[in-house]
């Protein structure tokens, strides 16, 4: 039995590789059929110091190849936009409405936002920032791990769980540390609808 160990291992590796290769292709094929996504989301933030998660809701809008609107409606309003290669972020002020965010935390967001449009377009591999592995599932899940220590300081792992037809991400799990993690679930997902430019454009 022991003598056959390496062969058995190789056999399972081959199966794993072929399953993995098939699944990657399924995801790429599924994503290619999606030109736009317009969805609501519910986010649960788990913090070690709190017994109950913090719940946020919002809207996620994506248009191929790289336009994203990531909007939080409750409890704090904010809008992050990626369009024509430019990322911008706005926060809600009671006196002034939406204003451009002044804080430097936009740097962390820009990394995530920049990657979101890549991931929604199926560009997982050959990524210089995150390495991607695939869990066959169900659900089929892409696990992204930062290559850069600076990013690993604030995100340990991102897991994207795909729908059964591999066309869209149904759930995102972000593990920041053992003290903080996030689960985002997409709901009311509309695919391939007409999405105007102004959804992604900077606010006046």
């Amino acid at each position, binding site marked *: 039995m022991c003598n056959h160990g390496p062969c058995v291992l190789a056999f399972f590796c081959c199966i794993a590789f072929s399953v993995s290769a098939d699944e990657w292709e399924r995801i790429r094929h599924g994503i290619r059929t999606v030109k736009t996504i317009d969805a609501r989301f519910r*986010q649960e*933030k788990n*913090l070690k*110091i*709190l*017994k*109950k998660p*913090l719940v*946020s809701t919002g809207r996620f809008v994506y248009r191929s190849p790289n336009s994203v609107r*990531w909007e*939080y409606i409750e*409890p*704090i*309003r*904010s809008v*992050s936009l990626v369009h024509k290669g430019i990322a911008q972020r706005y*926060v*809600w*002020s*009671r006196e*002034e409405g939406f*204003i451009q*965010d*002044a*804080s*430097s*935390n936009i*740097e*962390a*967001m820009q990394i*995530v936002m920049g990657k979101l449009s890549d991931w929604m377009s199926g560009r997982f591999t050959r990524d210089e920032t995150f390495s991607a592995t695939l869990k066959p599932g169900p659900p089929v899940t892409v696990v992204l791990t930062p290559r850069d220590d600076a990013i690993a*300081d*604030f995100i340990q792992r991102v897991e994207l769980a795909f729908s059964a037809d591999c066309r869209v991400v149904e759930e995102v799990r972000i593990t*920041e*540390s053992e*003290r*903080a993690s*996030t689960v985002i679930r997409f709901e009311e997902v509309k695919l391939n609808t007409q999405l105007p430019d102004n959804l992604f454009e900077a606010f006046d």
Partner: protein
Amino acid sequence: MKTGVHFLVLLAGLLWMACGGIPVIHPIANLNLRADLKSDCESVFPRGKWNVVHAMEVTLPMGKKTSLMGASVGVAATGAVKSVLLSPEGIVLFDAAIENDEIRTHRALPPLEDPEFATRMFADIHLMFFQPPGNATEVGRMGDGRLVCRWRQKSGIVDVVMEAGGGWRIQKYNSGGLLSREAVARPPFSKGFAREMILTAFGLGGYKMRFGLLRVEAGS
């Protein structure tokens, strides 16, 4: 240009307020009224163990603004606090705790990595949510008739001023007698926490934070 004018007006206002000096307290002679007022002043600070989540609108020096979420767990008896600051999207920007005056930082993303930030943040949290050590040394009325309790400390003075309508105002004067911090709590309240609090830090590098109460668990 417009921003510059706004800044100068803000600066002038803050300087005027900060230079107002320590108000005179006219003592209340009646012992029962004094005891009631002391009790009212102490009741503005939460008791037991509490955890609270706020939406925060921050106005930075030069009028720049940002939004944050803040979650804190505090223990009234010990002054221990654990706090997490998050971006509106939920990214943890800052995660630290203070116990026995010792700060332990688990995460501090730029620009919050300066240890001085943690010290100031916990000082602000203590000012807003923890009764100053010891008993109020003076209780009485201010010149305008508002009731006030005063705690004298090595680092200065803390006044708790009871406002009409059920709110209150906590004012901290530094050892030089200048108003350095002010926290205003407005009704309504939930489990002793104001639905809205505004903290203003005066002086160079001053800032203003509006705390909107999102969630509170208290008294455990």
